[in-house]
């Protein structure tokens, strides 16, 4: 069974997968997840990517999407099933009961982006959901409760130089991994040298050996 899919990210959609504003909530993560599914359904896979921006879906014991940018690589959970029917046709579903297709992606995105999701009145939140089949709610609920597994690798010269000038370079190592995205929760693990996408995938892959941290 195929375990890895690779796509080049078209320049005019880079902003979707690498938003200008820092990712700070799960709505954004889910938006990226669903946009990725849509991208996978309609864009051709590439064996060797020359573009700096790419998306990799790794589906094995570990099920994750990896987004590769200029100085940044990040990864989130991929909670769906995927099957390649022909070289052109890929199908995605959730728990074999809900198709992740154009229509359902649009419905889920419109619910996630709707202001009613933040309404003080829970009935206002429910109202638009009731327009659709029951599977929409159970899928939306599971997505909202999803462990999104956000991990990011950064090669951040600007941040590092600034930290250095301020006298604490080890609070912002040049190469580092950020775990989680909420301000009070996120933390960095410094790396002695640059990481490639393969290093990051290898770090997260449960089929390969684990990495060890020195205890200081």
């Amino acid at each position: 069974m195929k375990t890895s899919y690779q796509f080049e990210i078209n320049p005019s959609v880079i902003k979707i997968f690498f938003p200008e504003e820092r990712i700070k909530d799960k709505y954004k993560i889910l938006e990226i997840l669903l946009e990725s599914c849509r991208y996978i359904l309609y864009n051709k896979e590439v064996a060797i990517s020359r573009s700096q921006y790419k998306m990799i879906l790794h589906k094995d014991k570990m099920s994750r999407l990896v987004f590769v940018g200029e100085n940044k690589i990040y990864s989130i959970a991929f909670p769906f099933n995927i099957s390649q029917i022909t070289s052109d046709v890929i199908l995605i579903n959730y728990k074999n009961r809900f198709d992740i297709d154009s229509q359902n992606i649009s419905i889920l995105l419109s619910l996630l982006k709707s202001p009613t999701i933040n309404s003080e009145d829970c009935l206002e939140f429910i109202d638009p959901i009731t327009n659709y089949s029951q599977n929409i709610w159970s899928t939306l609920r599971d997505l909202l409760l999803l462990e999104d597994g956000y991990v990011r690798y950064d090669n951040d010269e600007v941040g590092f130089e600034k930290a250095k000038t301020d006298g604490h370079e080890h609070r912002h190592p040049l190469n580092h991994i950020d775990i989680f995205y909420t301000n009070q929760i996120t933390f960095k693990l410094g790396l002695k040298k640059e990481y490639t996408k393969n290093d990051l995938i290898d770090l997260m892959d449960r089929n390969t050996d684990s990495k060890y941290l020195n205890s200081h």
Partner: protein
Amino acid sequence: MRVEKQIEWDKRLWVSHAWGSRNNPNSGLYSYLCNFYNVNFLRFSYQGTGYKQIFTQILEAVNAIEEKDFRFAFDYILIDERQDFPNVFFELCEKIAKNKVYIAGDIFQDIYENTNNTVLEVDIVLNKCYRTDPRTLMFAHGVGIGLFEKKKLNWFSDPYWSVIGYNIERLENRTIRLYREPIRRFDDLNIGDFESVIMGGSTHPSNVIKIVKGLQDMHKEIKPDDIAIILLEENQKNLFSYIDGLSYAINSKLEWEVNRAYENQTKIPNTIYISNINNIKGLEFPFVICITGAIKNTYKYRNVLYTMLTRSFIQSYLLVTDEKGLEANKEGLKIINEYNYIETIEPTDREKKEIENKLKKFIQSNANVSFEDFIKEIFNELKIPIKSRKKLTEAILNTDFDKFDKQKTIKFIKTNSEFYN
């Protein structure tokens, strides 16, 4: 100039929806009145609630108040979009406003439901449309009510034609020419140089890309948000796949970002606006590309087609997959472009009566019943088992006749019920 007095929002001046939410009386007129006259608030999402019900409920409550206890809720009420409200709403407003009620409506909003002469009983009519090129408006009216086709879906009385801005010229053999005064919204744009509506051409994404590229060549300064692409079909599954395919073609071939308006429900700068028919109300664009499978013969569809074509203020494109019946409309468009008038054949008195009766039936059936209730009644009448109803309803929603066409719905159910068990 110094501002002497700030507006006292929600104390002396309210600008709000008609409905609103229960917990905030200032969020809507109905919500405010429930609070003011102590009436139980009905939520918008409750099955079967509509303007007629909620405003009747308030009116009855107000009528029950003894004269000495009655208080006016407002001094003045200004209402927009009158076509969206039932008569009881205006009756209520007159009752609770101390001085005067002003009512404004849009005579260009629809070409079926509010086109009888009672709509004309108003004090002032503004019948010039400054948004749309008059040729686009003429074509939209023409294709909208089937003026270029043998069988018309609607016909207006002479006073109504005149109130929506047409001059009528009658020729031999019931031939009629309808003229509009030309209006120039942009002084620097010579509208005679190009056609305001372009019809035909494939609905394949590659043709849409070609059209946009053509626009880019002709208007060097054009930006993605100058263009809207509107899909006229109801929300069928393949509509969404079509849009996704088209969107990625736009991304890769034009390197423009797209805004799927049915997800974002707002305009986004520097993106091309792609929408179904539900997220376009009140918007206008320099260029509009309307895409549809076929020009259907239902009132709802034709009204949508009319409205969507008039969303442009420079140019509208209409791309149709099914060529059937296009020729007559193309011919009608050619005459508009060449001579600036609509040429059509006036229906005979008998045909007019037929048109009127059919439309009346449609409006009546559409008025107060939800589709669920409408279909339930038919299912009960035909004794269709509960378990097959869901599938049958889905199948009916995918047909091309009007949702509330009782005769056709019955025929469809009778013919197909054995296949849906």
